[in-house]
């Protein structure tokens, strides 16, 4: 067993890297998956109002959070890159604030979007404020 341990661990790690790489190679231009993922938001969350809506300080805070957590995938200008979606597209901009905050909390792991449920919901609303300001 001792002799097998290191090769087993290396094999496991190789499988994880291969799976991650295969997921990344999926073409990024297909935004429909993200749109359909956003559309899965439960009805009760769609109409939730952003408590920070229209507040300039919230947009600035959202921008700071966006640059900290989102920009390395979606690009600093939010136009997307690689697999990460362009957040200025109508599919994102036409989503309700409630749908977006739900999506941030749930993510879409199959397409590489992590869940940000660990981020307090107040900060997720602030990110939504910033995204909506890009319209």
């Amino acid at each position, binding site marked *: 067993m001792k002799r097998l341990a*290191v090769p087993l661990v290396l094999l496991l790690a190789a499988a994880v890297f291969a799976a991650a790489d295969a997921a*990344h190679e999926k073409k990024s231009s297909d935004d429909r998956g993200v749109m359909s993922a956003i559309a899965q938001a439960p009805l009760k969350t769609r109409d939730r109002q952003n408590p920070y809506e229209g507040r300039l300080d*919230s947009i*600035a805070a959202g921008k700071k959070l966006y640059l900290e957590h989102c920009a*390395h995938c979606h690009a600093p200008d939010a136009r997307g890159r690689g697999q990460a979606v362009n957040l200025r597209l109508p599919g994102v901009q036409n989503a309700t604030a409630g749908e977006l905050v739900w999506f941030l909390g749930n993510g879409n792991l*199959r397409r590489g979007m992590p869940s940000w449920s660990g981020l307090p*919901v107040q*900060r997720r609303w602030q990110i939504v404020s910033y995204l909506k300001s890009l319209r």
Partner: protein
Amino acid sequence: MNDGALWTGFRWENRFRPLMKEHWINPLLYVEYENINGADKTMIEVVGFDHEADHAPRNAVLSREHAHEIETKLILSSDAQGWNISENFIAEKNLGHQPWEFGYALAASRPLGLSATAGSCNFCRENIVAGIEMYGGLGSTDSATLSGTSHYLAPILAWHLPNGVTLRVSPSWGLTDTSHRFLLRAGLTYEISGWGQKVRSWFR
């Protein structure tokens, strides 16, 4: 006692998320391979009948012992009202014909500020997370008992800096006779954003 510093081995950590969607309780499977020697006195967690006396011998003696271990954890994590609550169930096996050893860790933590401020800041409340943790051993497959196990209660303080550096400090108080009376755990971590993309770019 000044016992010097030495290389004690390495750990290979992997985390797997079995459920793709977000739930009230989100399970995470953690698998770690450790190739270390006995002088490794890092108390990342407590399992089995780990106790204070394990750390008493000098490094020169302990470093002769080699341990190849597999450690698995079921991590159950929930986020609610800004709080993160997590329950870890730990099972560790020394591959050298030792029994499985078990442990647990329970923790709750919350940022001091839930919303972010507009400007960049280092010392604002949003960057500081406070919480409390309890952890300890749960015996082994040979003897599944709490008798003779060590348990600790530890406040947690984490300070996230905007550049990706996090400083964690956690003073721990032993709750049983076999525990250390007091431990101070501290850690400095740096998260590399977009690590996968960076590695991929090296091979293009």
